[in-house]
């Protein structure tokens, strides 16, 4: 019975994250923002340390530091250094400082692994509610901005000619990624958040004909991978975050093989 209750609360948390990660991940893939996802997620570790140091709520600390990272990168982008280099510096420095800060507060018995790789068992009932609020918020943001976001993704010049401001859309998307990171850190951990964004979207790609179908398919794939990963984790007594990402990766493998076979049949 205790197993069931634990399993279902983990499932509820995981599926909530997956529901938002699928569609949002499509934009991460289309706009080649994977490195940005890493930088934001790694900043979250710093956020955990700050929250512990100042006795604040962890989700709040994570959200604040992820948003700060998103805004800093947006502001610095295009000023001299290549974006790729800038993100590389930001992502890894944030991780290093975050782990250092977390280690300093280690006397209180903080389980660092829980924040690096996730520990879905520490998600409380309130945490699940927060995850679902976050998921609904991310989906509403995407729904609201969809035409502008999509046009700006296809071509920034075309978007500007239509009166759309690509910089604003980019910032909105980055804030949505920061929100997702804050939701997902306890589920899959800072090191694996980007995988949950990128892998379901990449898995959906060969089977989608429009952006909308890819987003819906990515959400379904992410939810399915979460379910299968959690079942495997509970059955094998394995860590849940890596199990979810491994299940997604296996799905991606099948999708790639499937699309190659399809192409051979058609071609």
């Amino acid at each position, binding site marked *: 019975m205790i197993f069931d209750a634990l399993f279902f609360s983990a499932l509820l948390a995981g599926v909530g994250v997956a529901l938002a990660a699928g569609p949002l991940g499509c934009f991460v*893939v*289309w*706009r*080649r923002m994977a490195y940005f996802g890493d930088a934001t997620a790694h900043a979250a570790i710093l956020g955990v340390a700050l929250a512990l140091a100042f006795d604040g709520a962890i989700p709040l600390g994570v959200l604040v530091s992820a948003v700060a990272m998103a805004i800093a990168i947006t502001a610095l982008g295009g000023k001299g250094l290549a974006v790729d280099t800038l993100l590389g510096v930001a992502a890894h420095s944030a991780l290093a400082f975050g782990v250092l800060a977390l280690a300093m507060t280690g006397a209180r018995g903080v389980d660092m692994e829980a924040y690096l790789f996730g520990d879905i068992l520490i998600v409380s009932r309130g945490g699940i509610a927060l995850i679902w609020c976050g998921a609904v918020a991310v989906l509403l943001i995407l729904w609201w901005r969809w*035409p*502008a976001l*999509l*046009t700006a*993704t*296809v*071509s*920034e*010049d*075309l*978007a*500007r*000619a*239509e*009166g*759309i401001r690509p910089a604003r859309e980019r910032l909105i998307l980055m804030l949505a990624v920061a929100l997702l990171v804050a939701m997902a850190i306890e589920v899959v951990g800072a090191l694996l958040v980007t995988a949950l964004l990128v892998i379901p*979207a*990449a898995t959906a*790609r060969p089977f*989608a*004909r*429009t*952006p909308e*179908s*890819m987003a819906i398919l990515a959400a379904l794939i992410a939810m399915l991978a979460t379910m299968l990963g959690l079942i495997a984790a509970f059955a094998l007594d394995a860590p849940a975050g890596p199990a979810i990402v491994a299940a997604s990766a296996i799905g991606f493998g099948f999708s790639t093989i499937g699309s190659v076979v399809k192409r051979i049949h058609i071609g």
Partner: protein
Amino acid sequence: MLRMPHIMSLISAHGLAIHLAGRVILRDVDFAIHEGEIVTVVGPNGSGKSTFMRALVGALSPAQGHVTRRAGLRIGYVPQSLHIDPTLPLTVGRFLSLPIRREGLEIVAALAEVGLPDTLSKQQITALSGGQFQRVLLARALMGDPHVLVLDEPTTGLDQPAVAAFYLLIERVRHRLGCAVLMVSHDLHVVMSASDRVICINGHICCEGAPTTVSEAPEYRALFGHGTKGALALYQHDHDHAHDHDHDDHRGGGQV
């Protein structure tokens, strides 16, 4: 050609300067396009033609001066290059519905307008040939019934017959819609036959006026060399040649 002051221009630029990455790309540009006018922009590679177009449609903000677009102006813009990331699944029909959702019939009509079959709307945009892709871009530019078409080298990558067909198409569309056309072109016979006005750009407006006026202007000759009205020279001119005239802000036959 006399400018009639009572006709409000569709797009105008005053004292426009554009800087990109700290470099001055365009300076001192005064420009206006009016209803129904066909204006062609010529100039060597790297002379700021695309920058000029992007500034006029609002894709770049000026470092100095300003661009004015008539209130409620609808622009149909065809950018010089458009790379669609292969990770983004996009049918032709969906592309034509960006950012405003269009009805199926509108999409079929727009495709027919540019001479494409309606079956194409279900095809992935990355699977189109170069000529089809340019036509789809034009179809999208036509979707909102624009007051002005802004075409930035719309025939790049097309072979000669396709180029001719494309310009015929633009001419037909313009006759039907009555919109103004502003385009960058390397195809001088088009410039000479169809344009009301030609603007020669090389970091600033070197000269402008009726096609024949411009082709005889010394500034134009300095850029494109001497030849039969400069027409052959444009095809043959060496893009690396020294540009030695002194930018004295002389505006050719603009107000002739």
